[in-house]
């Protein structure tokens, strides 16, 4: 319990709502990461930086043309999709059969590069979009919900739904799953697995971009902004099960709730300690995660 606070029903509900809202954002970031891992067993260490780039692209379009995040969001998501595809063709394709350490350093190197580039272009300072269209807060019987938070969360949940339907209900989604499950067999069906990999990187980057652009309505933009989101996404992926999209959703929401409630009941300073303690407890009991196949 944080010193000086009293635990009322309103506060608990308020906390659960905030945790849920944050959880859907974590879930989408994790889903993108999990998709790429499930497809080719490569961990994208630049995932947080993709998010950061999406946020700066919103910021850049605001500076250049005065575009509101709401307007620039679709453009920025498409830009990140293209960046993901380019990452596959420019880097990943060449290291597919390389030792794991090479794969780690390649995406890690990309992360450092993107972070440094952001510092070079926009300085390490915290930036924000002044007066976005999406603003204000709702008062629902004493429970306050920030409109930007609500919109971000709803947007992420919607994107998650689209991703789920795409993967499970479309021909291309099925081909993507087949490629993830057995690349050689998929190629013998006539599936162009290299294109599926590129598509996976595009979708993975687009997922984290949806979260990023939504966050610009109420979150600071700085070169390290993606770090904590990516860190939580790694936990969510391990918790939910590597490669499981549904697992990412559950784990993301679980982390959001634990973070918020842990912050309320103990102290906000301990919230990440609680998340990682939970993570350790679950992976010890169930190493393949809640929904994992590996």
């Amino acid at each position, binding site marked *: 319990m944080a010193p000086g606070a009293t635990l009322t029903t309103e506060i608990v509900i308020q906390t659960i709502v905030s945790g849920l809202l944050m959880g859907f954002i974590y879930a989408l970031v994790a889903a993108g990461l999990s998709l790429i891992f499930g497809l080719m067993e490569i961990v994208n260490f630049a995932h947080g930086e993709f998010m950061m780039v999406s946020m700066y692209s919103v910021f850049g379009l605001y500076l250049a043309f005065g575009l509101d995040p709401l307007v620039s969001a679709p453009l920025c998501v498409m830009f990140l999709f293209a960046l993901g595809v380019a990452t596959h063709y420019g880097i990943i394709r060449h290291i597919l059969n390389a030792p794991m350490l090479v794969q780690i350093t390649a995406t890690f190197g990309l992360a450092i590069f993107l972070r440094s580039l952001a510092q070079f272009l926009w300085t390490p300072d915290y930036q924000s979009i002044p007066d976005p269209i999406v603003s204000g807060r709702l008062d629902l019987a004493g429970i306050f919900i920030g409109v930007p938070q609500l919109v971000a969360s709803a947007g992420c949940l919607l994107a998650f739904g689209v991703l789920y339907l795409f993967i499970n209900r479309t021909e291309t989604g*099925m081909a993507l*799953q*087949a490629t993830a*499950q*057995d690349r*050689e*067999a998929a190629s*013998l*069906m*006539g599936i162009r697995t290299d294109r599926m990999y590129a598509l996976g990187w595009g979708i993975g980057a687009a997922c984290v971009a949806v979260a990023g652009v939504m966050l610009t309505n109420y979150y600071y933009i700085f070169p390290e902004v993606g770090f904590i989101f990516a860190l939580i996404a790694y936990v969510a992926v391990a918790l939910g099960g590597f490669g499981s999209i549904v697992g990412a959703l559950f784990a993301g929401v679980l982390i959001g709730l634990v973070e918020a409630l842990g912050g309320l009941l103990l102290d906000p300073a301990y919230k990440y300690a609680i998340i990682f303690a939970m993570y350790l407890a679950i992976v010890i009991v169930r190493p393949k995660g809640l929904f994992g196949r590996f």
Partner: protein
Amino acid sequence: MLEVEDLEVCYGDYQVIRGVSLHVAEGEIVSVLGPNGAGKSTVLNAISGLRPPRAGRIEFEGEPIGGRPPHEIVRRRLVHIMERRRVFPYLTVRQNLWLGGYNPAARDAREETLRHVYALFPRLAEREDQLAHSMSGGEQQMLALGRGLMARPRLLLVDEPLLGLSPAAARHTFEVLRRINETGVAILFIEQNVQTALGLAERGYVLESGRLVLEGRSGELLGSDAVKQIFLGG
């Protein structure tokens, strides 16, 4: 129909296939025999495009296909069913079959081909919503064959279709291969058991250490001392 000449295939610096030539005529059923590590699978992988050859000529229906990627080769209705079935474990039976007809040459006829496959394997129709990994080995082999048929093959490459099957499932698979062949589909298959293989095939090729050591009609190979020597070590 299929002509392979002086095929050479390497894994890195290690040459696995050292000059293999074989052919399959329209509607024929031919087996590739040989002890473990002889390079049988590698030959099929080279034909279907999974493992590009280092040298040699591969022609299918008069056109060179050596070194072309798998998605181009399957479109010519040359279909490869790999060893150990390799079904997509977390897709349903129906999804597996549906993806078998993914390539543009087979796509438009998928509904019809699927009915045909279900008629051949009623068990697959019963289990169409089941995840592939939850099925028995015999059922997975049916699924692998059915998925291959979904690509509407003119030539089917089948790698060890009887591997790990119960005697009953093996007999059934054997019978199905014969029926597929009777519909006019040529088959080139790998089998470890000489008696079984030559019981099904019209002709056979025997590989040893990446080289072709014998070829002939099944009857001749069955009686040959050389075959006994290779497989029984005496």
